[in-house]
């Protein structure tokens, strides 16, 4: 068999367009799975790794949405293509499930267990392939509807209770898990592990492969009944009907996709400030020390209540009680007594009083203002009265 492989007939299974369609769906499905699973299991460290590698959750969602858009467009293309094959070419609907598929499945299962001697004879699409196709159709419907609800929650809740949004999320995640695992178990095993079926890449199956997997289709092909030919005139007439309908359908579906993707700005791009109260609002101003108002010249020029308040306040820092400077100006007696270097106040003679002389020079540690000094001078000249 292998020697005359080159000359043995090959049978076209998938056209180039179908193979490209498969590739587009394969890529978008894989992308959706890769970016969707980390969202379903966000706590897993693998999820965090994938999200970090892809540039953060917002980027992951953008990629997920883009892949969803690609898959939606692929689906529209598939619907219109299927319509053309059904209504214009009038090809037999070989993908429709039949009762025979159920029988085939059980027969194959029993054959595998050794309970049945013959493997079922199948046509263009085996029960395994049909199951996968219709599972994909079911999945696309569920994912499309639930995806729309999550993508457009405000629009959805105009018609449905709010609870449907988290329910859609639950269904989207559950269905996704089912689809990914089904691909791994069913598809991977069926066309990669059991036997590597290259038809989706090369487009062709050998006669041996056809005989093995699609014996009924091979028989039909050999008998020339697999593809009914259409008269060119009839074909044009059907096209004339189908193309406008398909165009309208395409516009409606594309508009639907546009609404799906861009219809709703769900949330503000920037969250509003959470705390609206002013950050800096001094509650009570920090209490400031309030200096006792210095007596002014309008007050009586006596010690008590006037000079007796001025001296401790202006001079008390150094010349307080028992001052280390040797001069205390805290009491009337101490002022008149003077310091270790003699008297500082000569009653009646301000010009001769050392206190006035020193203050008049300026630059003293506790310098009196001119007004205060004038007050002290007036007091001394008045005889430095105590009361």
């Amino acid at each position, binding site marked *: 068999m292998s020697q005359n492989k080159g000359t043995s007939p090959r049978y076209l299974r998938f056209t180039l367009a179908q193979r490209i369609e498969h590739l587009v769906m394969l890529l978008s499905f894989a992308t959706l799975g890769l970016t969707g699973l980390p969202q379903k299991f*966000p706590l897993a460290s693998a999820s965090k790794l994938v999200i970090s590698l892809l540039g*953060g959750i917002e980027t992951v969602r953008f990629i997920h949405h883009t892949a969803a858009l690609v898959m939606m467009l692929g689906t529209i293309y598939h619907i219109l293509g299927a319509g053309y094959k059904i209504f214009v070419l009038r090809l037999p609907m070989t993908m429709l499930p039949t009762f025979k598929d159920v029988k085939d499945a059980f027969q194959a*299962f029993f054959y595998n267990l050794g309970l049945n001697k013959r493997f079922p004879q199948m046509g263009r699409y085996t029960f395994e392939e049909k199951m996968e196709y219709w599972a994909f159709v079911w999945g696309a419907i569920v994912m499309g509807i639930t995806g729309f609800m999550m993508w457009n929650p405000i629009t959805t809740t105009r018609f449905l209770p709010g609870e449907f949004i988290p*329910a859609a999320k639950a269904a989207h995640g559950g269905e996704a898990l089912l689809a990914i695992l089904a691909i791994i178990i069913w598809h991977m095993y069926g066309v990669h592990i059991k036997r590597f079926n290259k038809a989706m890449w090369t487009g062709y199956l050998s006669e041996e492969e056809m005989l093995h997997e699609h014996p009924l289709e091979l028989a039909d092909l050999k008998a020339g009944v697999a593809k009914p030919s259409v008269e060119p005139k009839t074909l044009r007439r059907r096209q004339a009907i189908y193309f406008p309908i398909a165009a309208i359908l395409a516009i409606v579906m594309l508009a639907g996709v546009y609404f799906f993707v861009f219809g709703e700005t769900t949330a503000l791009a920037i*969250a509003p400030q959470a705390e609206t*109260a002013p950050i*800096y609002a*001094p509650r009570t101003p920090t209490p400031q020390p309030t200096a*006792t108002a210095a007596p002014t010249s309008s007050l009586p020029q006596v010690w008590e209540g006037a000079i007796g308040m001025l001296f401790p306040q202006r001079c008390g820092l150094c010349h307080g009680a028992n001052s280390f400077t040797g001069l205390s100006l805290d009491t009337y007696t101490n002022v008149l007594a003077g310091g270790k270097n003699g008297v500082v106040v000569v009653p009646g003679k301000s010009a001769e009083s050392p206190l006035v002389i020193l203050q008049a020079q300026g630059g003293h540690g506790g310098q009196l203002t001119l007004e205060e000094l004038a007050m002290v001078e007036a007091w001394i000249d008045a005889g430095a009265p105590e009361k």
Partner: protein
Amino acid sequence: MKRLQVVSFGIGVVFILSAAFFLVGRTQPVEAASPTQTTDNQACLVCHSVAGMSKTLPNGDTLDLTIDEAAHSESVHAEAGVKCTDCHETITSFPHPKFEAESRRDATLAMYSLCQKCHAEQYHQSQDSVHFTALAAGNLSAAVCTDCHAAHTQKRITDPQTGQPFAEQRILTAETCGRCHGAIYEEFRASIHGAALYEENNPDVPTCTTCHGVHSLQGPDDVAFVLKSPTEMCGRCHTDAAMMGKYGISTNVLNSYVADFHGTTALLFEATSPDQDFNKPLCFDCHGVHSILSVDDSQHGLKIRENILVTCQKCHPDANANFSEAWLSHYDPSPEHYPVVYYVNLFYKIFIPLVLGGMSLFVLSDILNRLVIRRKRTVIHESK
């Protein structure tokens, strides 16, 4: 004979000197420790304890120069024997060197960095705080060390026995922050946390520093700080079963938040890109930042559906009443609460194993066939 006198004189001198050194060496350091300090501080207090001593600064501010001797003597610095001149380094004699400060604030800002002489760790932590960021940006009102800690009268904050702050410190902290953050302070006092703090000094409720941190404290401009709020701020207490049990509060709040779209996103942001701008709600976006109230509050409680809708509309202006039900209010879906979600989950819990089980069964039968039965058939075939 003369020689003997010289020698004995020399021995005498050596003896006396050694005795003197012995006495000096023994006594002086012991005496030097505290009395000198006291003397030093007292030398300052001779003048600086006089009431009403002040200085008018060029901008008109009055700089208080009086030390409240009684309050100072109770301070942690007095207890530790810190000398006035330890901080007022330049003042070593009288008259003092000229004090150059335009305003009271300038005087404070000129002094605070001295704290790091003893409190280096706290000082460096504070350098990373929101206050120092603001100060560096030119906001001179931003708090420095001595705005929170009284320079001359600060009492001990932490109990040296336990290393934990004293019980009364929790309210004192709120009062301290409230001096500048008055509006937020009022919100906090009226909140369920603030009320419990002020009314019963409840040790379970947070005070300001519980969430914001102490010296390296952060504010809302720090996205990383904000992002970790569900897990590290609110979640730390609200997932503590022992603590929440006392008040009958659910500990499922964090899990149910994380199970939701918003919480998932928050968690992933925190894990993968903690510095990026984030627009999903965190705990405080619905419950309030400082004005957190009980969900049972008769006016603003989130058990009232309209109040949830109001919080939804902060970010989803077009949201209607139905929309607010998309948030499951921290419930795990059950036949009583959110049955649609519950039954969808249940459906997939049954549907997934059913479908995959059927598929696996068929695949296994195929593997079995290839490995065992077909070989047996071949053997039978060949033997025939």
